[in-house]
């Protein structure tokens, strides 16, 4: 994972609420055994017409979405299944951050482990970002993870919450497995004092 500090990125907005992981990456694309190539199937059923051609009405198919790195999405983004293919697909498309008023728990956890930053903002900021994206497709905002801020084109700076551990891992590009493995001796001690509750073999 690359360190995530600060960047200026173009935004694109999909205002729909409750976008579930089946929309982000439909189940037919879960047959892969690696993580690659999912970007082209992101939002597949919205992005392509039944004949396979791009749906011109869908925002990601418009010129403005080219090079967009920040997705502004409706409330409760990423609800539904635990498929990590969802953040893999979003990241493969080029997104580095999603801004919403709320995220589903598993999606948020999965994103944080893949260098994709879920940013929760208040309703007003969210509305402002949506209209900015509609008015000017070239709208850019600055995301600063160490400071936990986003800066809008009018200079307004908004704070966002993130737990200190996830922030530390993202800012430094640390894989969380490393932290877990530092505790292996404590895990072993736990195992010694707690008899195995089930044996599958």
């Amino acid at each position: 994972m690359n360190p995530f500090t600060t960047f200026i990125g173009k935004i694109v907005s999909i205002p729909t609420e409750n976008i579930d992981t089946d929309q982000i990456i439909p189940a037919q694309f879960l047959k892969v055994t690696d993580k690659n190539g999912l970007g082209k199937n992101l939002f597949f059923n919205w992005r392509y017409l039944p004949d396979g051609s791009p749906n011109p009405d869908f925002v990601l198919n418009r010129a403005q979405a080219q090079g967009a790195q920040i997705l502004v999405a409706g409330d409760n983004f990423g609800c539904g299944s635990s498929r990590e293919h969802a953040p893999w697909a979003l990241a493969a498309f080029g997104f580095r951050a999603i801004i919403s008023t709320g995220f589903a728990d598993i999606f948020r956890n999965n994103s944080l482990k893949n260098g994709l930053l879920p940013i929760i903002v208040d309703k007003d900021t969210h509305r402002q970002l949506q209209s900015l994206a509609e008015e000017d497709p070239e709208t850019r905002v600055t995301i600063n993870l160490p400071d936990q801020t986003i800066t809008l084109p009018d200079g307004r700076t908004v704070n966002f919450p993130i737990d200190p551990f996830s922030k530390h891992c993202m800012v430094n590009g640390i894989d969380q497995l490393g932290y877990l493995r530092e505790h292996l001796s404590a895990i072993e001690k736990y195992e010694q004092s707690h008899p195995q509750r089930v044996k599958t073999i």
Partner: protein
Amino acid sequence: MTNTPRTLFEKIWDNHVVVHENGNPAVLYIDLHLVHEVTSPQAFTGLREKGLTVRRPSQTLATMDHGIPTTPPDVPITDMMIVKQISQLEKNCAEFGIPLMGMDSPNRGIVHVIGPELGATQPGMTIVCGDSHTATHGAFGALAFGIGTSEIEHVLATQSLLQQKPKSMEIRVEGALQPGVTAKDIILAIIARIGIGGGTGYVVEYTGSAIRSLNMEERMTVCNMSIEGGARAGMVAPDETTFEFLANRPLSPRGKAWDAAVAQWRQLRTDDGAQYDHTITLNADDLTPMITYGTNPGMGMKITDTIPDPADVADVSARQSLQKALDYMDLQPGKPLLGHPVDVVFLGSCTNSRLHDLRQAASVLKGRKVAPGVRMMVVPGSQQVKMQAEAEGLDKIFIEAGAEWRESGCSMCIAMNGDQLSPGQVAVSTSNRNFEGRQGSGGRTFLASPLTAAASAIEGAVADVRKYIA
């Protein structure tokens, strides 16, 4: 700590914290890790790349369910990507020493059906799986939740997981269910009430007399759909019903160990005076059969209700979402769903594919016929469920009614294996998700109970099962 009253969730949480450093998430020990073919391959690749092994193969159990076909075993699999996923799981399990309920195992089935069936799921445990419906196992008084593929790798490597402590919510259901109203209707009513994000950040404990009187299979149906309310985990405190279900299962404790286990399990209840962060109450007497009309599981209503009108919704985004859903579903506001024509009826999924579900549906279908032109698929949750159902003659009831009797698996719940709706088709489904395209691109799903599904199959249209119940 022992003097402070604690909730069931807190007791299990406290009992599994290995380390909790200030400001960091807790290192939580995992007792049982369930693995399936679709979300695990990249985790095993990660282990190999890092030169790691599986820490506790004997606390891990694998099966194949999501992509596998439900056609007879002698029909070859034609989807080469599925073939590859299956062989990859076989290879991974062999290499890392993980027990696998594979294609030819009589214990194969949907991962959330076989865990309890084998007795691997037990009270007081932490259980994870790369699948959001892991909440199902909470019916046994376990803390069970879905994880992503990175976390699968973490658990394989360390038998532990990094977790922020969730908040707790009590959902209390008092009273008695009326005839024709099932556990599925309880949970659909709960989700319609709290919304699909209502449980985000919470672990739910279901309490109250209506929950207590449910059998284990019904409790699993309720806990299963906790995630549809946004909660990662749902749980029910274990009691005699739980112990009776678990006695003499292949992986349950035996003899003295059983007695000791039951004595411990009896402690697993929320203490008097313990505080939940939030409590919701429902009256079971008021519940009726439920059905969803929209494209998320929160868009549910009493089966006799009419479809809500977006014009009545004040919030702009909620209004747009409802309008979008009705457009996708091709439904008109103000109209009833009863009598709406149906093309497919799907009886299956980890929500409603156990013996009790099949018995309920069969009780309605017995001596009756699936309406002409309607396809009804019955997909048992596991090979064990299939065999038991056949021993009772349920398969014959379904087949004589004109339904298809399939091999076990996830099937049309997720539509990865070719069991799917065609664009525009309408299904009454006992599964858990009605998202756009979930059961096949362009397909439309009404979620309901096995009883409602059976009645709708007979009428070829959304039907109120209560008229079939004497």
